[in-house]
C-alpha cells in the first residue's frame, strides 16, 4: 500500500513537471523570441534612429546612395577601389570563397589581380602594393581599405582626373579614420566616403 501511494505521488509530481516544462517553454518563447526583440527594436528606433536603420549615406541632392558600412564596387578607374569581393559587393548576401591558403585558385586569382593592378598602375612599384587590396575580405562587403591601399592609388587617379597628387593625398589623410578610442582595430579609409568627397572635388 505504501509503495503504491509512493508511486502515485511520483507519477503525479512527474505529471506536474511535464506541465511546468511545457508552460516554461511557451512563456520563454514569447519573452525571448517576441517581447525582447520588439522592445529592443522600439528602444533602438527611439534612441538611435540613424544607426538603427543602417547608417545610410546621402549625396548632396539628398539621394540615398548606400550605407557607410557596406562596401560598393567601383568599376570606374577614376575612383578609389575597394578590396576584392567574390560576391561583387552584392549586399543581399555576404561571404567569400573561403579559399584555403594552399588553394591554387586563390593563388591564380591573386596573380590575376596583380597583373590587372600593374596594367592600371604602371607608375607604382609592385612592392608597394599592399596585400589587403588584393585579398578577399571575409564578408565580401568590407567598406574599408588601409590608408596605404588608398595612397598607392593616388598616382593613377591623379593622372586620370588631373587633380594634383598632393591634393588627393591630403584628401586620403582627411578621410583616414583612427583606431576606435585610438586603440582598438586598425586605421582605415572608408572607400565610399572618400569617393563621395572625390566626386565633389571633381564637380560630378
Amino acid at each position: 500500500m505504501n509503495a503504491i501511494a509512493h508511486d502515485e505521488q511520483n507519477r503525479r509530481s512527474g505529471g506536474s513537471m511535464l506541465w511546468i516544462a511545457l508552460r516554461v517553454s511557451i512563456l520563454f518563447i514569447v519573452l525571448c523570441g517576441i517581447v525582447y526583440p520588439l522592445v529592443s527594436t522600439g528602444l533602438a528606433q527611439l534612441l538611435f534612429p540613424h544607426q538603427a536603420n543602417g547608417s545610410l549615406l546621402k549625396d548632396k541632392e539628398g539621394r540615398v546612395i548606400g550605407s557607410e558600412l557596406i562596401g560598393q564596387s567601383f568599376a570606374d578607374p577614376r575612383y578609389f577601389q575597394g578590396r576584392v569581393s567574390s560576391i561583387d559587393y552584392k549586399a543581399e548576401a555576404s561571404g567569400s570563397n573561403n579559399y584555403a591558403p594552399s588553394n591554387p585558385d586563390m593563388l591564380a586569382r591573386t596573380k590575376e589581380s596583380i597583373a590587372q593592378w600593374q596594367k592600371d598602375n604602371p607608375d607604382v612599384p609592385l612592392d608597394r602594393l599592399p596585400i589587403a587590396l588584393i585579398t578577399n575580405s571575409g564578408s565580401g562587403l568590407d567598406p574599408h581599405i588601409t590608408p596605404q591601399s588608398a595612397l598607392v592609388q593616388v598616382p593613377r587617379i591623379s593622372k586620370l582626373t588631373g587633380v594634383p597628387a598632393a591634393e588627393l593625398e591630403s584628401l586620403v589623410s582627411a578621410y583616414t579614420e583612427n583606431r576606435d578610442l585610438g586603440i582598438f582595430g586598425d586605421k582605415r579609409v572608408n572607400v565610399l566616403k572618400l569617393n563621395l568627397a572625390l566626386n565633389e572635388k571633381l564637380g560630378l
Partner: protein
Amino acid sequence: MDLLQIVIVIGILVLIARPLGHYVYHVFSNESNRTDRLFGWAEKPIYALIGLKHRAGMGWKRYALSFIVTNFVLVAVSYVLLRAQSGLPLNPNGIGNMEPTLVLNTVISFITNTNLQHYSGETGLSYFSQMAVIMMMMFTSAATGFSVAVAFVRGITSKGKTLGNFFEDFVKAHTRIFFPLAILVTLALVALQVPQTLDPTLSVTTLGGAAQQIAIGPVASLESIKHLGTNGGGFFGANSAHPFENPNGLTNVIEILSMWALPAALPFMYGRFAKSRKHGWVIFSAMMTLFLVFLVVSYTAEKSGNPALNALGIDASQGSMEGKEVRFGIAQSALFTTVTTAATTGTVNNMHDTLTPLGGLVPLGEMMLNVVFGGKGVGLVNMLMYAMLAVFICGLMVGRTPEFLGRKIEPREMKLIAIAILAHPFIILAPTAIAFLTELGKGSITNPGFHGISQVLYEYTSSAANNGSGFEGLADNTPFWNITTGLVMFFGRYISMIALLAVAGSLARKQWVPETIGTFRTDNALFTFLLIGTVLLIGALTFLPVIVLGPVAEHLTIR
C-alpha cells in the same frame, strides 16, 4: 599597438571576471541577497505563470529530465515555426519554408548552443524566425547550459541529495543575467551603428550608378545574445565579419568581452560554492594559461602571413588578410578567433577556412580540448572533470584513494567521467572517417589537398564541441551533412551533460572525508600545472595523428 590592444582587452576581462563570478554565485546560491530585491518582483509572476509553486530541490535524474523535456518542447515548437515560416508574420522579404533536414540540423544546432549554420541568414530565415526561433533558442540554450553547470557545481560542493531546482535556475538565468545584459549590450551596439529594424532589405543606387540590395533587420538584438550566450550563429552569412554585425573595433571588443566574460567568471562562482576561492583561481589560471599559448600561436601565424602570397613580391607586411576585414586587422581578428573557439561561441569576424594552417590549428585545437573557458557552463564542467581525472591519476601514482573537495573519487565516478571524456573524440573522429569513406561526404570538400581533411575535421569538431564556427567553404547544406552533424551536436551536448549530472548526483550523496596532512592539495600552483598537463596529455593522445594529417601537413606544403 597590436600588442597593446590585445593586452587591454585581456586586462578588462581579468578585472570583470571575478566580481561577475561572485554576482553569478549570489544569483544561484539560493540564499537571500540583494539580487532578490532587484529582480524578485519580475520572477514572481513568471513562477505563477509556469505553475511552479514550491521550488523544491531535485535529484540529478529529475534535474536532467526537466531540462531535457524543456529543450524538447522548445525544439518541437521551433521545428514547426521554421517549416511554416513563409506563412508567418514578419516576413517582409518573402522567404520560403526551410527544407526538413536543414530544419532538423538548425533546431538541434541552436538548442545545443552550437549554432552551426548550414543556411545563410539573409536568404534562409524570415525576421520572425530570426526572433522567435534563433534569438529565443540563443537565450534558452544558454540558460540551460548555465543551469546544468550550476547544478553540477552544487553537487560536487554541497552536502545533500539535491542539485537545485532546474526551473528556478532556468528562470533566474534569464531574469538576473541574460535579459538585463542583453538589453544593455543591444543598445550599446546600436549606438555604435549595428542596425535594429523590421524594415525589409534596402534598395539603393550606388555612387557608381549600379543597383545594390542591402540586407538588414533586427541585427543588434541577435548580436548581443549571440555573444552573451556563447551561441555564435550570425544574422548574416558572414557572421561577425559582416559590417552590420560588427561595424568597428569597439563593437569587436564589446562582442569579445560579451562572449568571454561569463565563461571566465564561472570558475570564480565555483570558488565561492566550494568555499575556497583558491579553487576558483586554479581553474581560471589553467584556462588562461592554455588560452595565452593559443593566442600567441594564432597571432604569430596570421601576422607572418601566407608564404605563397608573400612570395609574389607585393607588400605583405600586414599579414594574412585573405578572409579578414581591414577595420579589425590582424590583432582584433586573431584575438576574436582565439576567444570564439575558447568560449565555444563559434561567431567569427574572419573566415576560419582562410586562416594560415597553423592559425587554423588554434581554433581546431581549442575545440578539441573544449576546456579553455568553454561555452555556457560547459567549459567549467569539463575542466572540473579533468580536475577529477588529474586527482585520480595522481592518486594512482602515490597509491592513495583520490579525493576531490573532500569526497572520494571512486570507480562509479571514474566510469562516468571516462564516458564523458571519450565521447568527445569518438563523435569527432568516427564521423570524420565515415565522411571520407563516402562520396556524400567527400563531395562537399572545396579546398584540395590536406586542407580538405581539415575542413571535414573542423566541421565535426565544431559540432561536437558545440562551437558552431566552420571552415565555411565546406558545401555542407546536404542531407548527409545536415543529419550527421545534427547527431554529433546532439550527442556532444547531452551525453556529457547527463554523465556529469550523474557524477554530481553521486558525489552529492557521499560522506565527506576530513582533510588531513596527507590529503593531496587541489588548490595550489602544482595542481594547476598537473591539470594543464592532464588536459594536454589526453588531447594530444587523441588528436595528434589527425592534426598532423590536416593543418600540419598543409603547413609543410606551403612553407
